[in-house]
């Protein structure tokens, strides 16, 4: 088979779970948060790509499936910007 079989993806997913758990014992603060979220993003990407058929889907379907991420980003980024700049001189 040209691409990874579902079982291989599953093994990678479990490995990433182990990785994020291990990282939580070593890393902390913003670095820890970044790594944890990065690993979660990779895991989700694998699920979307292989299990949720984006691998074989048309561009339209890919946009439909992932377009909302942009709006999630807008929500998080603007609100964070507010909190980080409150009380500055």
């Amino acid at each position, binding site marked *: 088979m040209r691409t990874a079989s579902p079982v291989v993806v599953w093994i990678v997913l479990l490995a990433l779970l182990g990785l994020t758990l291990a990282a939580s014992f070593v890393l902390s603060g913003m670095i820890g948060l970044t790594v944890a979220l990065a690993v979660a993003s990779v895991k989700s990407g694998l699920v979307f790509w292989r299990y949720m058929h984006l691998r074989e889907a048309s561009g339209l379907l890919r946009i*439909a499936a992932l377009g*909302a991420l942009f709006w999630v980003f*807008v929500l998080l980024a*603007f*609100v964070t*910007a*507010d*909190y980080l*700049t409150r*009380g500055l001189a």
Partner: protein
Amino acid sequence: MTLQERPDRENLADTGLSETPAERVSYLRAGHTLKSWLLTTDHKRIAILYLISITFFFFVGGAAAALVRLDLLTPAGDLLSNEGYNRAFTLHGVIMVWFFLIPSIPNTFGNFLLPLMIGARDLAFPRLNLLSWYIFMLAGLLTLAVLILGGVDTGWTFYTPLSSMFAHGQVVLAATAVFVAGFSSILTGLNFIVTVHKLRCPGMTWGRLPLFVWSIYATSLILVLATPVLSITLALIAAERLFGLGVFDPAVGGDPLLYQHLFWFYSHPAVYIMVLPALGVVSELVAAAARKPIFGYAFVAGSSMAIAVLGFFVWGHHMFVSGQSMYASAVFSFLSIAVAIPSGVKVYNWTATLYKGHISLDPPFLFAMAFIGLFVVGGLTGLILAMLAVDVHVHDTYFVVAHFHYIMVGGAVSAFFGALHFWWPKMFGRRYSLVWGRLSALLIFLGFNLTFFPQFLLGYLGMPRRYHVYPPEFQVLHVLSSAGAGILGLAYLMPFAYLFYALRYGPPAGDNPWGVTGLEWQTRSPPPKHNFDAVPVVDGPPYDYHVEMEGDEDG
């Protein structure tokens, strides 16, 4: 895989087309039982179901507005108690926003026209469409329960900590009603998006879509992306109020401003849910009235998309005086002003379309003209409010109230009536009295301005919103506003008389009573259940009117 063309276009008995001769005559004749309406999956019948439902809520919300305006006749607020007044304006807001304005044009005209305009037989998911109406009705029943059980007094914004800790009344029930209505919005938006992508007839390219379809598409994006954020926000309010699971409660380190961020992330784009379909309707009405191709089609279509996307970046302008960071406020102020660009593109292009057109002063066009004028006033005052420094002074005054009523009532409701007058002959196959139509358009315009223009002055002079006891010097303007509301109320009732009269006694409309372009006018009035006898094929641009040039024979 065998790709089979279905339905067979030669054979009317093919299951792809309507089964019975009555269905082939018109969707209205396809069954007269209650069941044939309540279990229909025909987008046209569901549109009529929505039309009836939202009209009902329009008058419930209108009754609440009447109470508010009556109470404001005297400076002492003699008619209603303080709580009664709070409940009246809250109910007015909740019902008008979620049970009239948001579903108004998309769920009635969008449902009816979208498949017709793109040459489809129905929406992508017909049964989901019906489900969406039932969910909407469930939400409506919950709202009526709120009304009967004593109402709610938080204002339509449900601001915490008022809503979660202090307010009396049916806050959770009202939030549930809005939550449920949100599902209806999401499912409808999803249905429209997939329909536009997957069910356009041959030749109906993106560059040939009617502008109403573009605006409904842009609206649907907002419905799908913004509504869930409101749902979770209301769920958090309910969790705090019911179970004490506070996340906005300052006592546990929460921030009430976070609620406002979440609420306005939905509710500002929701303003565009209300006005974008209206902009689409007016584009149709203007082109039809001028008998000219729309000026700058790509820009008008693109501006709908631009408004939909930009609308997500401006919510912070509702929070200028709330304690939000002033840097965030400055950015939000700048972005809010930017929305004026696509809005301006639309107004200029409509004007350019009308220039040297053969304008006919039919009722739909009068409503469109009313819309353009009121939208410009509402939009320009919006620009004033987007200015950070000015907003600090007029925030939470009647200036704001007047501004958004110019957009939502003067704009969206005028467009709704314009659409009703334009497509009524198509929907029911009957003509109505044009004289009465012009008269009601005129009265609605005058009544509206008399109601809301004084409110700009009131706000500028310092009258805060949501107060019913006010200094006596404001009384003259309040009385003027209430008098205007009386005229407006009567003017809104008028169309019901002559439109219903037309249902029975109006002369047959013919397929294309206005003599305009568009696929919906090429089928019968009212359309058959399957919309088109043969799948239409589009081979030209939209609004393909003949334009007389200098040197033409009869020019």
